[in-house]
């Protein structure tokens, strides 16, 4: 569980820089500065570029015209800055090495630094579960996980479900049964349902409701969410 990120026994006093007195020039190289992704080649000057653990695939195709540019996936890594530590994450099958500050949550890394915006933040307090992702197969609220504590874990987000152009049965069922209205809580609902159906074949309605009970939907699409999980369960039985 302890990768390079969490060097056990290393006292924070040993760190050379205090977060608040970090040189601005260095910080400005960072996107959002939560994780140390470098914007462009020029920014690496003076900082040592590391290679990711595995070759990283090319950036996703640019989103449609009306979208602003998204930060590309990690192509270069900087040394940890201030309180940051080097953390390895496997997200949707790709390995990343990232310099991450202690207060940075997993959802911030996913959305802001890796451009995986499918995961949604609803309350930032573990009270709605819109931010649900799988961490080593267990559904967790990514808003309340410190990313540096998740080093070495396998993360799956809603973007990681579709395989070879084929939707996951849970995605297909949420679409067909309209297990949503506005769609904002949907990625979290889907990840929660995937966790259930991965470990429970043919769940009862009571099991589905208990398992899905933490995922809030203010539109109130609950009856169709139940139908969607039932339909997906049939497909996956």
């Amino acid at each position: 569980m302890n990768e390079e990120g969490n060097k056990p026994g290393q006292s924070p006093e040993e760190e050379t820089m205090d977060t608040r007195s970090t040189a601005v020039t260095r910080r400005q190289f960072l996107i959002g500065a939560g994780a140390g992704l470098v914007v462009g080649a020029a920014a690496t000057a003076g900082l040592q570029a590391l290679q990711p653990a595995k070759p990283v695939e090319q950036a996703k195709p640019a989103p449609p015209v009306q979208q602003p540019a998204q930060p590309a996936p990690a192509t270069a890594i900087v040394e940890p800055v201030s309180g940051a530590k080097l953390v390895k994450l496997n997200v949707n099958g790709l390995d990343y090495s990232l310099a991450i500050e202690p207060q940075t949550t997993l959802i911030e890394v996913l959305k802001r630094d890796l451009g995986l915006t499918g995961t949604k933040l609803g309350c930032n307090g573990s009270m709605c579960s819109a931010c649900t992702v799988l961490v080593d197969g267990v559904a967790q609220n990514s808003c309340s996980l410190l990313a540096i504590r998740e080093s070495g874990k396998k993360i799956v987000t809603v973007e990681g479900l579709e395989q070879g152009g084929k939707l996951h049965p849970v995605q297909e069922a949420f679409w067909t049964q309209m297990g949503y209205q506005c769609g904002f809580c949907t990625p979290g609902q889907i990840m929660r349902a995937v966790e259930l159906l991965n470990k429970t074949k043919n769940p009862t309605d009571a099991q589905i409701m208990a398992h899905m009970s933490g995922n809030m939907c203010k539109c109130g699409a609950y009856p169709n969410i139940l139908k969607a999980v039932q339909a997906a369960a049939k497909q996956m039985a």
Partner: protein
Amino acid sequence: MPTTSKVTTFDYDKLTSAEKQFVDLYGLAALQAGIANAESPAAPPARSADKPAAAFTIIGKEQRDLEGYKIVTGRARFTADIYFPDMLYVRVKRSPLPHARVKSIDTSKAEKLPGVKAVMTYKDIPEKMTAGGRPILASEPGLVGDPIAAVAAINETIAEDALNLIDVQYDQLPFVIDAREAEKPNAPLALSTLKNNLAGTPFKATRGDVSKGFADADLVVEHVVDTQDQQHVAMEPHMAVAKWDRDNLTIWITSQYTHSTAASVAASFGLPTSRVRVISEFTGGGFGDKAGIAFPYIWLVTLLSRKTGRPVRYELTRTDVFMEATHHYPVYQTIKLGFKKDGTLTAIQARSIAQAGAYSPFAGFLASDTLSAARVQYTCANISLEGVGVITNTGVAGARRAVGEPSGVFALELLMDEAAEKLSMDPVELRLKNLNETGDPESKQPWSSNGLRESIVKGAEAFKWKERWKGWNAVNSGTGPVKRGVGFMALASNKGSKGPPMTAVVEIPVDGSVRVVQGGAHIGGSQRTTWAMIVAEALSVKLEQVSVTPPDTAFTSDTGVVAGSRATKSIGLAVKTAAEDARQQLLVNAASKWSKDLKKDVKADELEINEGLISYKPDASVKPLTFAQAVASGFVIVDGQLEVNTETGVVRVLDVLQAHDVGRVINLLTIRSQVEGGSMQGIGFALTEDYIYDKATGIPVSANLDDYKMLMINNTPKITSLFIETNDAVGPFGAKGIGEPALMPPAAGIANAIYHAAGIRLKSLPMNPKKVMEALKKKA
């Protein structure tokens, strides 16, 4: 018997622009009969598509959402998903006091924090610039949570650290939290600019002679009812990203109405609207709270982006949302009804105090909407209604799904139930006896469709009302601690048909596909799918041929707000009209082509379109043309069953049936989902959701999702929806709106069922264990 009636009217031309907007969006002016609603015809017009339901090829079926792929894969781009590499993040320091004057602000330490790019206070806001009357950064905060200082930094952590370095000193001012207190002549002024706390002229409506009505009555019932403060809690928190490109401004915002934001921001910054682009591709819920309302945060990101020259993003925290966003306002009501022995209503008297919060631009209209049901739902010769909106140092009142009607109809329908018992009548019969089936009693405008009687009769039948109700003797007759009961209510809603001029364009590009250019939001009702279905039906093309644009003010015209239950009816009407126009142009083009090709005079009305092919009716041998070749208010009843645990006070709703006159079903999948979602929100209104203020300090104590309790999937009852198709006179293919009517019924239905189960009448929302236990104790 001739009756005279008088209803307070508002001089529309004297309203502020924000008030006009609100009146327009929610059709509230129509309530006040003095303002003619140009859209509602004096008599039902000939119906444009008066065909039986079976004759439609696309509408009326279950159609899965055309945007569903994006939603289930996480590709749907919400405002929350907009990031730029050089973007700055905002955090806002908010007032801890409900009413105060800022004595001093020291931002020097915050400005020096590495990573901070801009700090703003009220001193940095251009003179006279407000967000629709609300301070962008306040020097005299009027509620806890008013924005005081804003920081833009390279990440949210630095911005938050910077907030702690800002020192603000206040002079405390007197404040008032409760509208009933604020209404009194000697109450502290909620804002120093006010002369008194009353918002506008009180609303009054009288008809006949109410004292005579009560004198003639055999039974008089009355009660005091209060409904709570709520926040909408759309799952996507309020947020915006602003980006200036020299003198062009782009704002991404989570919104139900981008064009409204573009217009108000452009006016405020002195820009032509053509230079302000507002985009909201997907909107994560709104329920009225994102209906183009001017919020301080929109101006803040715009100002901070202009100051720093970088894109600026402000994603409000959930607590920020509770404090800055609008609220479904508390209403304090007294209502009194008079009846003859046979159940005939002889008099209605009601007074309603609406707690408007600070700054509400809509304050003057809030109380009147709570009285709508009392004025129009039942036929009654004598009424006297009064409503006042009162400014307080609390969350700004706005519109939540059906605005004031849910509170008003709750009060009315509780009392109807109580009256039915005292008259020894079936509550269903009492409603049927007094139904107003003709139209607005004051304006004399007929209902655009009228399926209320049919909804009640068929709904009661489907629910097996008689069998399950068993008469008034069955009240509180269960044994054991958990008691079951059923309840009934009826509702005639004014919602879902009005609005400002709407525009939409249906384009048929050279390849023959169909593109609907419109500016309405996609926010939960699969709106883009609904409009595609309407266009496909109107053009007789396959649904797959049709695409619908997201709202982007650069490319779309003002289609109006997606709120007020108007997405289907009003916007639907706009896209249908546009489609019909396109259809006519296509046929004229095709006729002219065939006139040349066939060398004879082909007329447009000799042509027809089927599944995207244009054919020449007189001669089947002529090969059909494809487009590519041719181109160059709702009514409702609800019944519900529930159980009340008399040892714990916990109420569990088991079975809900809503029957609605929907005019015409467009997408069966969506409309059912709207009723189910509305039921859930209505049950939350009835049982759990409660935004509570500490009275001594004015600080809200439930501004988070732990203490503000919304219902989850394991509190979902069985929900049945019954749709009565009456072919509305105005809506596209006879359809009308459903979003708002679906939320209103549960509260009264549940309260009446609690009485049936446990013999207690609860008159205060939410009906939580505390109130149930207190009522049981009082009864014992």
